[in-house]
Each structure stands twice: as structure tokens, then as C-alpha cells.
């Protein structure tokens, strides 16, 4: 079994599905000969042909719009938007069409579409290349929103997304593309959507996060462990629909919860999780829920991005606050 990084896992999953199902088609900017600006599709056009790995003209609206037409006519398109900051021209198609085609035709037409896009900051990228749009997308009824946080979950969740009969937004944390390697078997085994993954067990508090922020969150759990504090770490993975029961079950045991996300705070998914805890888990809480998030500021250019991104120190401080509260 090979040790691969997250972007290689994405490539492996795409290749697996292209080989398994001839309805699978990739489309996007620079995904052919160039193999994608992050190399997620490297070698795929050579292997599967330019008809199934399509370099499109430079127009995000039509990348998603045409993919919807392909999906409704029986293909399984996987569209790549080069950076999530360039997703916005396609939002009309995602909200008005992809998310509701099944509903508005009572199931006559469907939209088995995956839109992959790198997201998040921390790689010193240019302006508009470090967005975290997951809450915007999760607010749309009819869309699934998935974000992997390791090579194995990228592989397994992407297989699941491509095989799912409905549209899936697959947000790939850019900062994790090459952060670490892990053994991933190319066994075609999908991971389940719509469930959280508990990455480590703990008894004193629950840390909830997703995507690249799990790197800092796990580091915070390590730091807390040196002080004898046992933190459970949950990777939400599918942000919509949300697996609240797993989080509730954990918090019922630990009594404390810190939610960590890179996206801006207001109306972020941390608020949704905190509201779920307040509605259904209030009496098991021993301390107020804490959020450690990006600020309600514009995502700064690279020189300030480390000040924007939640740090291990901020997460540890929030964890301490929950522990001091009772």
C-alpha cells in the first residue's frame, strides 16, 4: 500500500471512478494536459481521453451549468472549480438548478454532480484564493457539502460523492493537499456520507472541526493531553446534512465543546452546531460552548493570514475556558 498525500488521494479516487464507470466525466480549467493547477487530475486526460477529461473554456458559470445538463442526461460529471473564490459565478446554477432539479421534477430528472474546489487559506496564495464558502453552500436545501481532512477520507469520501445520486460540493482544504502522507489502499471502498468521524476518543471535552483546521485541532488536543486533559476530536466531514447525533453523544459524555472553523464566525456552521447543542444537549453541558473561528473580516492577503486562521493557542485557550467554567 502506497503512502500518499491528500491531492494524490483525490487523483486516485478520480482515476478509480473513471475506470469503473464510463459515465464519469471530469471538466474544468487546466485539468487536462496540465493536470490541474494543484495536479489533482494529473495523468487522467492521457489515460481516459480528452472526451472524458475536458479542458473547458474559462467560464465557471458554464462549467457548473453544463455539468448540470450532463448529469441530467445520464453522465456523472465531476467539475473542478480552480479555487473556491471563483465559485461565485456558478452559485446561480448550484442554488437554482443543481440543488432543486430533482425536487422540481418530482424525481423525473436528477443531478448526480460533484463540484470539487480547493478551499481555505494558509498557503500564501494570491487574493481570492483562500475562501471558506462552506456555510453559504450548506444553507442551500438540496446540496450536500463535504470536506475531507486526510488522504484516506479524501479518497473514500470522493468515491462516495461521485456515486451519490445527488449534487455534492466537495471542498478540498488546499493547505492539506501536501501536508502529510498516509497509507491509502486503492480498493474502491467508499466512506459513508452524512456522518462525522471521531478521530480520537476523550473524556474531558469535545473538539469539533473539519477540513484543514483539524490539523490545529489535533495539535491542540496533543497540547491539552500533556496537561492531562483528554479531548475527543470529531471531524464533521459532511457539513450538510449534519450528523448532530454523533456530536451530541460525545458532548453528553464530556460536557464541554469547542467548535473550530476557518470560515468567518457569523452564521458559520459553528453557530449551527452550537444551536443544535443548545436545543438538544443543553442539560449535558457543563460549560458554555466555545467557537474558535476566522474573524468576520475579509480574508487577509498572505502576510496576515496566520493572524486570521485559528491557531493551536486559540483552541487551547477556548478549551481551558470551558474547563474553568465549572
Amino acid at each position, binding site marked *: 500500500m502506497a503512502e500518499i498525500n491528500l491531492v494524490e488521494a483525490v487523483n486516485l479516487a478520480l482515476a478509480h471512478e473513471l475506470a469503473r464507470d464510463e459515465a464519469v*466525466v471530469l471538466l474544468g480549467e487546466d485539468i487536462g494536459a496540465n493536470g490541474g493547477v494543484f495536479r489533482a487530475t494529473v495523468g487522467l486526460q492521457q489515460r481516459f481521453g480528452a*472526451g*472524458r477529461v475536458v479542458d*473547458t*473554456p474559462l*467560464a465557471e*458559470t*458554464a462549467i*457548473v*451549468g*453544463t*455539468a*448540470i*445538463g*450532463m*448529469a*441530467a*442526461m*445520464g*453522465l456523472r*460529471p465531476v467539475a473542478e472549480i480552480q479555487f473556491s473564490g471563483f465559485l461565485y*459565478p456558478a452559485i*446561480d*446554477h448550484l442554488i*437554482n*438548478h443543481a440543488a432543486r432539479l*430533482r*425536487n*422540481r*421534477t*418530482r*424525481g*423525473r*430528472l*436528477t443531478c448526480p454532480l460533484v463540484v470539487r474546489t480547493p478551499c481555505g487559506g494558509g498557503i500564501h496564495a494570491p487574493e481570492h484564493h483562500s475562501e471558506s464558502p462552506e456555510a453559504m453552500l450548506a444553507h442551500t*436545501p*438540496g446540496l*450536500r457539502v463535504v470536506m475531507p481532512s486526510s488522504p484516506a477520507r479524501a479518497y473514500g469520501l470522493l468515491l462516495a460523492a461521485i456515486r451519490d*445520486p*445527488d449534487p455534492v460540493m466537495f471542498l478540498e482544504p488546499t493547505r492539506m493537499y501536501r501536508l502529510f502522507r498516509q497509507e491509502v489502499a486503492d480498493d474502491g471502498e467508499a466512506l459513508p456520507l*452524512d456522518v462525522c468521524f471521531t478521530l480520537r476518543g476523550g473524556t474531558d471535552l469535545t473538539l469539533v472541526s473539519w477540513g484543514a483546521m483539524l490539523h490545529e485541532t489535533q495539535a491542540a488536543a496533543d497540547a491539552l493531553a500533556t496537561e492531562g486533559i483528554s479531548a475527543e476530536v470529531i471531524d464533521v466531514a459532511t457539513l450538510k*446534512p*449534519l*450528523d*448532530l*447525533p454523533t456530536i451530541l453523544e460525545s458532548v453528553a459524555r464530556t460536557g464541554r465543546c469547542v467548535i473550530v472553523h476557518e470560515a468567518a464566525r457569523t452564521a458559520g456552521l459553528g453557530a449551527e452546531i452550537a444551536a443544535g447543542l443548545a436545543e438538544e444537549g443543553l442539560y449535558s453541558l457543563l460549560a458554555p460552548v466555545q467557537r474558535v473561528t476566522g474573524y468576520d473580516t475579509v480574508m487577509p492577503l498572505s502576510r496576515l493570514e496566520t493572524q486570521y486562521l485559528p491557531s493551536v493557542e486559540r483552541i487551547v485557550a477556548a478549551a481551558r475556558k470551558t474547563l474553568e467554567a465549572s
Partner: protein
Amino acid sequence: MSTVARFHIDHVRFLDPQGEALGPLPDFARDPAQLVPMYRAMYLTRTFDAKAIALQRTGKLGTFASALGQEAIGVGVASAMRAEDALFPSYREHAAQLVRGVRIEESLRYWGGDERGSDFAQARHDFPNCVPIGTQVCHAAGAAYAFKLRGEARAAVCFLGDGGSSKGDFYEGLNFAAVWKAPLLIVVSNNQWAISVPRSAQSATATLAQKAIAAGVEGVQVDGNDLVAVHHVAREALAKARAGGRPTLIEAVTYRLGDHTTADDASRYRDPAVVQEQWSFEPLTRLRNHLVGLGAWGPDKEEALARECTETVNAAVEAYLNTPPPTTAAMFEHLFATLPAALVAQRDEALRFTPRKAGGQPGGDHG
């Protein structure tokens, strides 16, 4: 300095407004067996249209977009399509939809506020009405790509309006289809008005057909009130699409004789005298005169057709009004293939709080 590109746009018209042939006609245009069904479809569309407006005015239908005066475009194009092709209409193309086999009661259900109206019993691959302007061009281009990739001799046909040709989606879809050499026919029903904005304020181009040229696509302008011209260019475009997978843009010039929708009052922004003048160009009289000239039509047939269309529409209205109300659970049934666990509690809440008499009246509770 040298010229690196030139273009010209043809205008196609076979029948003058009185229905007189302006020159040699294509074969089908001398064949009553082919023309009469198209005349019938135009007549049925107009009968349906008038009935739908009457239903809206009496509180039995929601907002409705009339196709009055534009019947030749939808009928002429859709009659050139094959069952296996796919239609991507705007919300004003029930002429095309009726030809495709969409039932009048289905259309009424849609305009009456019920998603079941877009679950067509026939035309299973046709998209439902597209309300976000021009977006359907992209969907049609993608569908055409799918047909081409699988080596199927099918074409995608989309309709939009003159206003829609200002949208980026239109240019992007057109451009993708051109690069892909995809079997796509784009029909711009240029009815001169985008709600209250006239064609002159919509685009500075001499024609809308020439917008195709920038994408490397053949563009042609046709008299959209001349069924023979519309059907002729649509047949040629679809034959070309099926044979080699090349897109075509047809600008069909017509005039919106009605309001934008039943929620609009066009007398606020356009001169009724001009609208009255436009009635002398409308498509049904023109085709009827041509059929009379061929010896294939007369007052008896016209009367029988009127009766038949009225009966057909009345039966459809009956079926529409007798449709059982949609269930509350239907909101959740088709959101995803399988309802996610996270939504079960919301569905149960909706069911728990459903009043005994739910689902609204046909046309909506607003009356």
C-alpha cells in the same frame, strides 16, 4: 490594415403577412399533411393561452406567462425535433411543450403552484420551465455534450428571449457548445420586450443572431411569425446537429402581443396602437391563409378545429381542477434520492403541523 473576419446574417421568410408565398417553398410547406398538425398545435396553444389567463383572472391559476403571438416559433421548432431530443425551454414556450407531448393539465399544474406539473408523462428528458433567465443555455450545452460523447444522434434545443441574450450564461453556453461542436440548437424568441425594456435598449447589435458569430457559431434570423420559415431553418439546424454535432443560433423575430405575465400591465410602458399594428403580422392568420391557398382549409375545418381545441382545453382544465392536493410530505420526498436522517425530524414536524385541509387551492391561496 487588412480584414481578418467578415460576417453576414441571413433573414429567412417564405410567407408574407397575408400568407402569400414570396418565392419557391420547401416541400413540406406544400404538404397539408405536414402543415395542418402544426396549425392545429398553434391553434391549441392559443386556446390554452386564453383559457389560462381566464383561470388566473378568476383565481384558479397562479401567475402565467402568455405566448400570444409567438406560437409559430415553439411549434415550428418542436415539430422538427425527434422524441429522443431534449427541450430546454424558458417559461413562455408551451407551444413547443405541447408539441413535445407535455399535457395541458401538466402545464396548468405547474402554473397553479404544484411541482407535479413538471413531472411530464411524456417528454421525460425535457427540462422543466426555466425561470432564471438564460441559464438553460448552459444546461442544454451540457446535455448536447452528453449526447455527443455517447455517440447518440440526439440534439438539445433551448429557447430564450431577447432579454436572455444579454446574459453571460447565454454567451458561455453558446461558447462551450461551439468549442465542443455539440449538437445544440439555441432559439432566441425575440419578442421585442424583456418585461418593459424594449429590444433597442437590450442590445446595440443589428441582430441578435449575430451574437452567434463571436462564438464561431452559425447564426440566422428568421421571421418568427412565419411557421414555414421557422420550421425550415429548425429542420436544417437539427439535421446539421445530428450529422456532425454543430450548434446553430436562430433568432426568431416576433412580437409579444400580450403582457409579460398576468402580473404585468404592458400599457404602462408601450403604446397600444403599436401592439394593434402588430396583430396584422400574427402567425395563425398567415398560416391559415396559406392553407386556404393550398385548398386544404376552409371555414368548416376552422370551426371544427376551434371546437376540438376548446374541448381539449376544457377537459384538461377539468383534470387540473380535480387534481388531488399535493401532500406536505412531498416537500421532502424529492429533495434527495433518500431523505437524510438530519431531515426526518423536520419532515415529522411539518406533518404534525399540517392542517386537515392542506395543499392549497389550485392556483394558490392568494386567490
